[in-house]
């Protein structure tokens, strides 16, 4: 055994929960992720354990995601979502009865969705319990993320940064029964000094993009193939370029293989309107249903039918190729290093299953091959690596993110820069409130806690990200403005001593994240 691999999956969705509406398009992001990514991954883990395959994986479950997965309303709506899909797949089996090229795929959807629903129900609709089980089995290291995926380098107010970490650690402990050892900083966005805040909350490691380590001072001896200690003593792990590219890259990466399922050809757009109407948007707009029958085929609009078996064989090949390349990489590195090199391969979890439909199968083969077919590389979690190598070089990483161009441009550009005036002001005002109200009455206390929730929700980096990427922009603008408006109204009413209990109840009902929050985190 010559070196290690850490697969890190960042599981995150912004907090989208609209109890005030019966049907809400953006809530589907969660349901899609549950049934296309989280459950397929959990099934892979469970079966590996059952088959005695030793593996390690690291996942960040962000506080908004933990809050949504454990929310009864969203759980019920998720169940409703999958039941509807099962209903559709039953019809699809019939529809494709005499179309052998589609029939197999229709059947696959049907049994996969039924299996996913049963799994969902077997954990009482709360997937946090399922993740926890894998964690307790010692195979999965679960780490946290900023409380609402706030983009720390652009936050400025130190107390606001502290609150993002403190609330995250508390939420993590509440749901997972232990404090997190590590954190995935939202968008991998690091700035020097934030490591001291992490340290204050017991966090021992985080991740940065490649150049975060490479541009560190002094020059890192092992590059990105061993962690460094920040001046605070918190460890920083750097993303490996090579393994990232093999999976991430839309062109050269595995997910672009022509035998894999095409994401865009969806029955929500393809089938006859009256037939598909009950399964698309409630207002009659066509949308993705998750049922897709074609493969990528190539750069052509003439897509060919998808064959699940051919695609599955392909994932096995790709897993073998990935493992072969890592083996070469490790051998090459190990011969020049005086310790075992570590390759960090981080990805958005939702890449697997939702976007790259065969992604969970790829991981399944990768983990099994790693266990049975070779002994050059072993999988490891960051905590385990630090336990094996407690002495590391001290190096101050460079301010960076994993966004386009490596710094903050994705989250600070002409489409979204207007948000910071308001986010900064609200953060300063929140600190002002926390200082002013030492012993608030019950109503005031509720208003203060709600103000903290509104601020945190406004700070999600997802809104700026969506504004930049250009789809669902209206929703992101709306969310930012709504939370700022709600915060501002609470702030004004607290300052004037006239908190409106009805208004407060209304927004407590809507924005119910972090029920235990204590506004004094901003004190």
């Amino acid at each position, binding site marked *: 055994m010559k070196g290690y691999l850490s697969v890190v999956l960042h599981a995150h969705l912004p907090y989208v929960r609209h109890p005030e509406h019966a049907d809400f398009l953006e809530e589907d992001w969660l349901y899609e992720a549950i049934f296309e990514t989280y459950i397929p991954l959990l099934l892979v883990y469970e079966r590996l354990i059952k088959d005695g395959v030793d593996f390690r994986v690291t996942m960040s479950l962000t506080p908004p995601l933990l809050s949504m997965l454990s929310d009864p309303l969203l759980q019920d709506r998720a169940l409703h979502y999958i039941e509807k899909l099962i209903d559709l797949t039953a019809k699809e089996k019939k529809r494709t009865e005499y179309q052998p090229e589609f029939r197999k795929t229709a059947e696959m959807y049907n049994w996969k969705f039924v299996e996913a629903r049963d799994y969902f129900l077997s954990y009482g609709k709360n997937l946090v319990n399922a993740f926890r089980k894998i964690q307790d089995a010692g195979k999965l290291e679960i780490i946290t993320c900023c409380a609402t995926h706030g983009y720390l380098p652009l936050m400025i107010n130190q107390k606001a940064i502290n609150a993002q970490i403190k609330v995250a650690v508390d939420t993590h402990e509440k749901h997972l029964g232990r404090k997190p050892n590590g954190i995935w900083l939202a968008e991998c966005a690091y700035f020097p000094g934030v490591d001291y805040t992490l340290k204050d909350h017991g966090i021992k490691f985080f991740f940065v993009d490649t150049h975060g380590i490479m541009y560190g001072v002094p020059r890192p001896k092992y590059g990105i193939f061993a962690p460094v200690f920040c001046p605070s003593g918190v460890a920083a792990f750097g993303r490996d370029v090579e393994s990232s590219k093999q999976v991430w890259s839309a062109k050269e990466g595995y997910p672009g293989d022509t035998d894999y399922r095409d994401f865009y050809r969806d029955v929500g757009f393809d089938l006859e309107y009256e037939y598909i109407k009950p399964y698309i948007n409630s207002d009659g707009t066509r949308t993705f249903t998750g049922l897709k029958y074609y493969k990528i085929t190539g750069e052509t609009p003439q897509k060919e039918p998808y064959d699940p078996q051919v695609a599955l064989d392909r994932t096995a090949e790709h897993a073998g190729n990935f493992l072969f390349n890592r083996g070469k990489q490790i051998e090459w590195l190990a011969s020049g290093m005086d310790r075992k090199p570590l390759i960090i391969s981080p990805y958005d979890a939702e890449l697997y299953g939702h976007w790259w439909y065969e992604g969970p199968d790829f991981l399944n083969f990768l983990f099994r091959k790693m266990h049975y077919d070779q002994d050059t590389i072993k999988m490891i979690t960051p905590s385990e690596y630090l336990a094996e190598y407690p002495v590391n070089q001290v190096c101050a990483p460079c301010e960076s993110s994993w966004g386009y161009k490596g710094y903050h441009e994705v989250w600070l550009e002409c489409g979204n820069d207007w948000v910071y005036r308001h986010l900064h002001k609200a953060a300063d005002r929140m600190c002002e409130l926390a200082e002013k109200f030492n012993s608030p009455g019950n109503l005031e206390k509720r208003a203060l806690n709600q103000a903290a929730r509104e601020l945190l929700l406004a700070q999600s980096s997802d809104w700026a990200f969506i504004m930049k990427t250009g789809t669902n922009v209206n929703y992101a603008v709306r969310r930012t403005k709504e939370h700022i408006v709600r915060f501002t109204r609470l702030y004004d009413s607290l300052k004037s001593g006239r908190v409106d209990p009805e208004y407060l109840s209304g927004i407590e*009902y809507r924005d119910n994240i972090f029920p235990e929050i204590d506004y004094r985190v901003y004190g």
Partner: protein
Amino acid sequence: MDFVRKPSKAVPGGAAEGGLKLPSGKKIIKPAAALLAKARAKLAGKAPEAAERTILKKTPETPAVKTAPVLEEEQSAETPEKKAEQRIPSGILSEKPFSVFIPDEDYNSLFPSFYGETRIVLMARDSHWLFAYWEVNRDAVASMRSRLSGSFDAGVTLLRVYDVTNVIFDGRNGNRHLDVRISEGASSWYLHAGDPNRRWVAEIGLLIPDGKFTPYTRSNTIKTPADSVASVLDEEWNISAELMKRSYPKEWHQTGFGGKAVTGNTGAAGALEGSTAGKRNPQGSSDAFHAGSSGWLSSWSSPGGGQGNAPLFWLRVGAEIIIYGATESDAAVTMNGKPVKLASDGTFGTRFNLNDGERTITIEARSAGSRFTRAYTIDVSKYTKEAK
């Protein structure tokens, strides 16, 4: 992550453009707060108070914060499996469970544009570009008008950005500054500082025809991040050339350290980027740095030159200076006004990048209680030229 997130949230054909769809069915089931009880009662045709009372009984304290407490009751009554079984054979489920409709606030009209304060905030977008936003209130304008009297009307709004690397800024001692004339009505600006690893402060103010600049307010200090591999090496963790080759990703060899493709030297073109078309500055005047009063720096080219595209064969050179000394362990030492940390035995040392130019470094020690002061100055000059 651009790769995965985009498709996951995209809905082609403009389906998602509206962002929010009003619900078609406003099904009202078991509200969780007093307000919602009223809304429900109204829709159900009941008296509001009666509804409120029932709700409040169930959830006496801050009912809405807890997630839909009424759901528990339902869950305990039936197992999830049972519920599922009941639902599946019934065909299409037309409505999602458990929703209470409440009208949305008019967030657009309630959203504040400004806060009636005088403030400027500076942010680093990357190693080369800064972003500033600001607000100047009426009082500040009025007091500026009275201070400048006649010349106020002839003044132009100016954003001045100071390089305050290694100085404790007092408004005059910046290493250099960069001026941008601000178009009327602009309240934010992107500007090309072009220099990684430096510290910056911005002021928004008025420039009057005689060249005098009077700031309204000053920003926070920020630092532009590095964009290349550090020159500082660690003696204890020294890296051999062979190992460096092995452990640094291939891309870094190809472009030379500091030329990583993704970070790009995007600012090299020197064009200004504005938040909106109205904020663009076609003159590109922001690239013109002026030497600061201290004369700390006299050249803006990077040490050894060249930031554009990586040439086929390249060489970059630079120099660093190490200043060190010792004094009483409880003394306070400053270097050009900036405090220096002492080790427990009273020794101190610092190293920094040496740019081309002449400079004087003043090291001052003050005894505990400030009874005694000793100071030294060191004059340094450094010039880099291409050898023939």
